[in-house]
């Protein structure tokens, strides 16, 4: 069997007495869109924070393409190809959209002198990456707009563009559609579907239409623990899941 993209073993994170993530062992296969569902406070964002390195786990291990990355800092994971977007918009508001993306593109520049006197080719490459990421998230017309002045939906798009500028192979998406209007939602879902073609994704999303449209596997979490993992059909059919979480939401 092919080596998985990402694998967690008995991953646990405590906040004081609360086990926000409790003994989670999951496998994320290459090229698959794997959604994580669960009610508010289930620990979904905390899982993403552990995978991205924003938070250290209390115990357990994380392997990325076979390598143990549990102790690696955020920036090293990004350069290995793990990109993330945030549930609560996390951009650089006083910069233009292009500069926001450029910051991500710069992470692909080698260290040292290249960061002080980059070659013309390197500068072109950074510029091209930033522009490509901006076009990808649908904001090319907003290149010179200060990010703070964007609409909420556009900020959410920029969030994805910034992540894409780092050229990740694994995307950690924490509620990319949060707070979006219907039209924006539809557009970004379409974008995610396109990205899914050549990226591995871990997707947290409350919008069931979007999840069922692009996810191939689904994990349901409740109270920090994994309730069930399976294909979309399995999860839709699961009585346990229906009872614990999906309820009427899952009915069309």
């Amino acid at each position: 069997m092919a080596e998985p993209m990402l694998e967690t073993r008995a991953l646990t994170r405590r906040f004081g007495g609360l086990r926000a993530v409790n003994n989670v062992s999951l496998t994320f296969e290459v090229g698959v869109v794997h959604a994580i569902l669960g009610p508010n406070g289930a620990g979904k964002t905390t899982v993403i924070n552990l995978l991205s390195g924003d938070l250290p786990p209390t115990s357990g291990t994380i392997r990325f393409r076979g390598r143990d990355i549990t102790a690696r800092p955020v920036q090293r994971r990004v350069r290995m190809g793990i990109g993330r977007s945030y549930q609560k918009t996390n951009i650089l508001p006083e910069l233009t959209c292009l500069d926001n993306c450029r910051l991500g593109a710069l992470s692909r520049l080698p260290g040292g002198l290249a960061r002080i006197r980059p070659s013309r080719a390197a500068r072109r490459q950074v510029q091209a990456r930033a522009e490509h990421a901006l076009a990808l998230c649908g904001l090319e017309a907003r290149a010179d707009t200060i990010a703070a002045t964007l609409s909420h939906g556009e900020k959410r798009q920029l969030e994805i563009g910034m992540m894409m500028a780092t050229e990740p192979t694994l995307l950690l998406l924490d509620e990319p559609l949060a707070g979006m209007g219907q039209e924006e939602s539809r557009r970004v879902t379409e974008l995610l579907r396109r990205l899914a073609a050549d990226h591995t994704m871990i997707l947290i999303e409350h919008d069931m239409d979007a999840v069922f449209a692009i996810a191939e596997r689904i994990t349901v979490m409740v109270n920090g623990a994994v309730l069930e993992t399976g294909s979309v059909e399995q999860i839709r059919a699961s009585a346990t899941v229906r009872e614990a979480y999906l309820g009427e939401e899952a009915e069309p």
Partner: protein
Amino acid sequence: MMSRALSPTVVLPLLFVVVAVGLALYPLVGETFYVRLMAKIIVLGILAMSLDLLVGYTGLVSLGHAAFSGAAGYITATLILKAGVTDMALLLPASLAVSALLALVIGWISVRTSGIYFIMITLALGQMTYLFFHDVSYWGGTDGISVWDKPVLAVGGWTLLELSDRMVFYYTAWACLVAVYVGLWLLMRAPFGQIVRGVRINPGRTQALGHDVHRHQLAVFVIAGTIAGLAGFLEVARSGFMSPAHLGWHESAMVLIIVILGGMGTLVGPVIGALTLVLLEDWVADLTSHWKLIIGLFVIAVVLFLPNGLVSLLTRGAGPSWLRGRRATPAEAQAEGGDDG
């Protein structure tokens, strides 16, 4: 919207050109006393620009910056006095190396903290440096060190620069001021500077875009400390004197006030701040014995009515808006859970 001509990216470098040309021409017309004052302003301006790199560009408020200029100044003065070294080709690298090394140590400890803790730890480590030079009798105690010989730059029997000559010193310091400005301006436009800007605005997100925040902060800290070392070397070459007071927290706070007074994150602002404060001090001290009070009131007035510093008189409305805003702390950047689920 602001007019394009008023964009700070155009106005600020232009302003520096005006200031630099003014400083270059001043000795041709000014009285000796004021030329000396201008030399003092140039050295202070270099020190303040180096602190601006930390405070204005990286968002690291240091209250121990005089430790680096002071340590470099002590090395220069001691090498001249005790070892009889006046060769600038030796004195300058030695003092820069000492300030860079000290900045590496203090920076390595300090960048692990942020906000008020960063201020406290740079203050504490700066005071430790102060006490080291104050208490170890080798360095001359409270009286400090006075030297009569000044650095000389000679290549193969040709004397290029004799800093004991006031005019030679003046234009050497002036050239350093211009070189530091141009160097830092270029550095901040380079990818390195763009990443540092990200670190200032949103360190958490900048890290999540693949950048080592601490390493960039440390690099800036060492660059700023080394340039402060240059100012310390020039100070000894200018005044022939170095004492513990040069590196105490009073001095650090004064430089910080100069940066804020002139305008953080502008490079030229700190030079204007140094110019304003030194000239004001000279003028007010002649008028009244309560001059410190008057200066204090002036600083407060500027901070209240021109929060972006004196340079914002020229770039008003076009000034970097972030100067008024508050940076998101890493804690805020991380606490993304739960409020729009």
